[in-house]
Every structure is written in C-alpha cells, then in structure tokens.
C-alpha cells in the first residue's frame, strides 16, 4: 500500500513501447511478491504470538490446575495445585495443563439391584407387571441375610479429595470404578441385613453400612475421593408389594392396640389415684373429727367437773332434763303413754315404710286407752 504512490500511473507505460510494458510487468510482480512477503511476515508474527500465548491457561473456579512438564507432574505435593485463575505454562510439547475438578460434586448411581424398567416407564407408572420369578439377565436385585430378595438402588455423591492425582492419573475409568465400589457396598450391606431391617426397622443403619463399606473400599482401592452423600431406595419385590404392605399395616395396628392399652392404663391408674386420695383424706378428716370430738368432750368434762362434784345428784338431774327437753323440742312427734301398773302393756303398732311417714303411727286412740283404763 505504501509502495503504491511512487509507482507511475499505469496509463503512461501502456502508451509506450513493449520495453516499458515489460518493465512495468516485472515491477508489478516485484510489488506483489513484496506485499505477500509482508503478509507472510505478519502471519508468522501472529502465529508466534499465538504459540506463545497458548501457554496462558485459565483454571475454572471448580477446578484446580496441574502442569505436566514432559508428561511429569510438576505440582505433586498436596496443596500445591494451581488455584483458579490465569496461569502460564510453556507451549504444547513441553507443558500440558491438566484440570482436576476438585470441589465439584460428582455422582454415580447404582442399579445392579433394581428391577427392569426404564425411567420413562417408571415415571408414567406403566411398568410391566411383575412375573412369578426374576430373570437375572434383566432384573436386578440383592439378597439379604435371611435369603430374601429386595431391590435397592442409590446415588452416590462424592468429591475428589486433595491432591486428586490418584483419581486423575491412576484409573482409566475412575467413575466406573467408583460405581463398582458402590455396587459392591450395596451387595455387601444387603447380605449383612435382614429384610425387615434393611427395609424399615434399621434403614439408617443399612445406609451407614453401605457408607462404611464404601469408605473402606475407597481407601483400599486408593480412589482418592470423599463421599459426600449416599442416597438409597430400598423396596420389596414388586410381586410381594401387597404382603409387605400388610405387615406394615399390622405393625400400625399393633402400635394402635398398645396405645389404646396405654391410655386405658393411664386412665385407670389416675382414677385409682383419685380414689386413693379421697380415701386418705376421708381418713384424715375422720381422725381429726375424732380427736376434736374427744378433746371437746374432755374440755366440757373439765368445765363441768366442779359443779358435778358439788352436787352429783342435782347435776345429773338437771342435765338429763335439759337434754330431754331439747330432744323433745326437736322430735317430730311425741306420744305420751302412761305406764300401767299390773296390767298388760299397751300394744303399739307402727307402720314402717321405706320412707317412713311419721304422721301415721297406728296406735290405738288414746280415748280407747282411757276407756280400757276404766
């Protein structure tokens, strides 16, 4: 471009003879060559820049970086991995940047113990009906300690633990290795558990067993991962769903029966307790009354004793009469019958009814009595 202005106008050489024409052609060729050299040079510079720039690598936030120099890890000590951010590594044949997804939760699922049926069939509830037996080629299951068959599947979430070299470089297919360990843990836990323990009574223990076995295997195989979470789904065989449900129902009924008995028990005992309290307080008040009564009698006795000793005869007479009068005043009916000496006693008839009516005593009328007397 910069060379363009010095070249003479093209009309000029064309107007002259062949010599100038040749000259201008050679010159055009030289110009073209020169400009293409410039382009090649620019391209080369760009390529070199790109080559050098390829050493700049970015480690993503969930990853850690590791440089292999001539295939040998540079950062081998734990904690020496490259933090997220831009890093410089030498270009291709020398350095290779490996990204290890430490911190990223990965998951594998196990379905060696699960019955046949696609996820779509399961979601729509259109699983093929369970047959009378399980074809081992199609249907997965695990065996329990008491030789029962159950289905189990699970999801294992794990993370690569620092430095992650073994997970990254020691296994051709680390994910499948983890899955195998998980499968093994499920089979292992199942043969250590009875069917009811695995299903209902000790589901937590079952999961712990799986996890324990997993940790053991991870250590044994040197997988270099940490188990985050184990999710399990344990179900009875589909064919026996109804009998298993019936057992659960029986268990519910049992606890209801026991609860009924408990509430009866607490009711009965609290009633008895109330009754006992009543009996005791009755006893207390009886005792109190008795003591108070005797005490009152004693006080009265002491008050009366001097006057009695002064004249016993008079005292007795007076008090007897006083009481008798009071009694007579209070009495609902009073009947006087004179005593008859030497004759047969009066015959007095009383009609007693359940609710005694005192109004109707049936003594012979007094006039008759008098008549008899005469």
């Amino acid at each position: 471009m910069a060379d363009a202005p010095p070249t003479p106008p093209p009309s000029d050489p064309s107007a002259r003879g062949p010599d100038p024409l040749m000259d201008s052609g050679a010159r055009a060729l030289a110009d073209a060559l020169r400009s293409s050299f410039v382009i090649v040079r620019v391209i080369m510079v760009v390529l070199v820049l790109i080559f050098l720039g390829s050493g700049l690598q970015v480690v993503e936030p969930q990853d850690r970086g590791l440089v292999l120099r001539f295939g040998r890890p540079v950062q081998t000590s734990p904690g020496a991995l490259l933090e997220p951010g831009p890093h410089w590594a030498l270009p291709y044949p020398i350095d290779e940047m490996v990204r290890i997804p430490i911190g990223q939760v990965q998951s594998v699922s196990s379905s060696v113990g699960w019955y046949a049926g696609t996820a779509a069939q399961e979601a729509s509830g259109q699983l093929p009906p369970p047959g009378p037996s399980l074809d081992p080629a199609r249907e997965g299951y695990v065996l329990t300690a008491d030789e029962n068959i159950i289905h189990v599947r699970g999801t294992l979430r794990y993370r690569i633990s620092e430095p992650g070299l073994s997970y990254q470089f020691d296994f051709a297919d680390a994910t499948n290795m983890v899955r195998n360990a998980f499968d093994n843990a499920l089979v292992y836990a199942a043969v250590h558990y009875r069917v009811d323990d695995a299903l209902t009574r000790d589901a937590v223990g079952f999961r712990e067993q799986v996890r324990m076995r997993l940790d053991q295997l991870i250590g044994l195989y040197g997988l270099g991962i940490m188990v985050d979470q184990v999710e399990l789904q344990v179900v009875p065989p589909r064919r026996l769903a109804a009998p298993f449900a019936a057992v659960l129902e029986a268990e519910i009924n049992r606890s209801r029966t026991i609860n009924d008995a408990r509430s009866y028990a607490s009711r009965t005992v609290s009633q008895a307790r109330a009754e006992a309290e009543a009996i005791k307080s009755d006893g207390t008040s009886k005792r109190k009354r008795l003591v108070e009564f005797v005490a009152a009698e004693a006080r009265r006795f002491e008050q009366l004793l001097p006057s009695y000793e002064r004249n016993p005869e008079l005292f007795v007479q007076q008090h007897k009469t006083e009481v008798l009068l009071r009694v007579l005043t209070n009495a609902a009916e009073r009947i006087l019958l004179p005593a008859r000496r030497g004759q047969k006693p009066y015959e007095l008839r009383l009609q007693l009814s359940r609710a005694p009516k005192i109004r109707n005593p049936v003594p012979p009328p007094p006039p008759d009595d008098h008549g008899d007397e005469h």
Partner: protein
Amino acid sequence: MKKRNPLAMVIGGILLVVFGLLLFMYQVRVTEVAVVTTFGKPTRQVTEPGAYFKWPWPFQKVHTFDKRIHNFESRFEQGFTSDGYSLLIMVYAGWRIEDSMVFFPRFRGGSLSEAEKSLEGLVRNAYNGVVGNHPLSDFISTDTNQLKYVQIEQEILERVREDAAASGYGVEVAFLGIKRLGLPESVTEAVFKRMESERQVLIDEIKYDGEQQASAIRTAANLESARLVTEAQAEATRLISQGQAEAAKYFEVFERNPKLANFLLKLSGLEAFLKDKTTLVLDPNTSPLELLLNEPSTPSGD
C-alpha cells in the same frame, strides 16, 4: 541479503533443533509406560514419566501403553456352592499392566481388549473354584460371624493373582470385588413363595405380640390401681387409729371422774341419736313430763 542472513540462520537453526528433538526424543506421560524396541525387539522399559532420548526411527521405536488401572467386569454366571446350591455371581476387578516388556509381545500391539479376554478366563476359573469351596451360608447368613463375604473376595483375588502371575501376561490385578449375587430364575420363584408365607407368619406374630403387650399393660394398670386403693385404705385405717391413740390421752382427764364421764357421754350420745326427725313414745312419768300430770293421777294407776 546481508541484512537477512543472521535471522534466517537463527530460524533455520531453531527449526533444525526442533526437528532433531522430535527425532531423538520421546515423552512418557504420567499415565503411561513405554517400551522401546530396537529393530523390533523390546529392549527398554520406561515407567517413570518424563522426556527421554532414543535413536530415530529405523533403529528404535517407542510404544506407549496406558498403565492406569482398568476396569474389568465379568459376566453374571452360575456357580455351585460346596453344599450344592447354585449361585449367580458377577465380579469386577481393577487390573493394570505390570510388566510391559512381557505384556507387549504377549498381546498383539499391546491390545487391552485382548488382555481383558484372557483375564476373563482367569477370573472365571478363580471364582468358580472359590465358590465351590464354600457353603451357601458363607455368602448369605443371618449370623454375621459366619459370613465370609470379604474373605471370599480375597480368596478369588489371590487365586486370580496367582494365575495371572503364572500365566505370564504381565498384568497385575489390583483389587477385586463382588458386583452382584443372585439366584437362578427358578429359585427366585421359590424364594418369593417362602417370603410370602414368612410375611403371613410375621403378620400373625405382630398381631399376637400387640395383643400380648396390650393385655400386659392393662393388667399392670389394674394391679397398680388396686395397690393404690389398698394402700390408701391402709393409710386411712392407720390415720384413724392414730386419731384414736391421740384421743386416748384425754382418758386420763375422764378418769378423774368416770361416772361423770359416762354420764356426759351418754347424754351427748342420746342427743346425737335423737337429733333428727324422730317419733318419741314416752311414759309421762319421765322426768320433766311428770309435771304435766296431776299429783293424784300418779297413784290413780293403782
């Protein structure tokens, strides 16, 4: 021309060096192991990662292999336990190239899939042999002490290792585990029948247990209430007799004149007895009433 020469020389030199390095050097990655062949014969094994020298192509050639642990899974196959039960078993194993100098010539081009095929035979022999040495109760048992699950895995592993070492494949089995255990299809049907009847037994047991527990609770409650009432009655009796004992200390007061005491007791008893609505039938000669009668009428009775 003179100006360009040194730059061209430098570039040319660099290119030459790079080309030479490509010819004379090779890299072994951390995941790899390399075998160097000289005129087609394996002469050198490189297990440590890094960059190494070699003679260029017509003389030496480098073959690299994946030295990582590979995953192997057997088929789900039937075996017979020592007590005659048939059991389906599937194992997985992690294996790797142990000696690439042996491995490389053994399998064409160091093919991993060829090696796996050979390994499958080894593993099958091993677990068939081991399963046949154990009764079913070593695999499945309610008695945890009797279970030999881990031991069986270990036995299979050891046997596979022995066989692998003897066979000279140049591979090593790092670990091995059971992936699936199962029963033949015909047996599962019988298992289902047994499970079903076990469920029924369990239902009956639960029902019986519930009733038993409930009646035990009721009986205990009844006994407890009876005990409470009886104790309360005993306590009440004790209280009353205590009251009587307390009252007894007043007797010495009454002892000063028993006659009066008895008289007063009779009086108050009488009054209490006749307190409510009563009908009295009296002889008019009773103490205060005799006043009502005339003086002579008394003797008129004759």
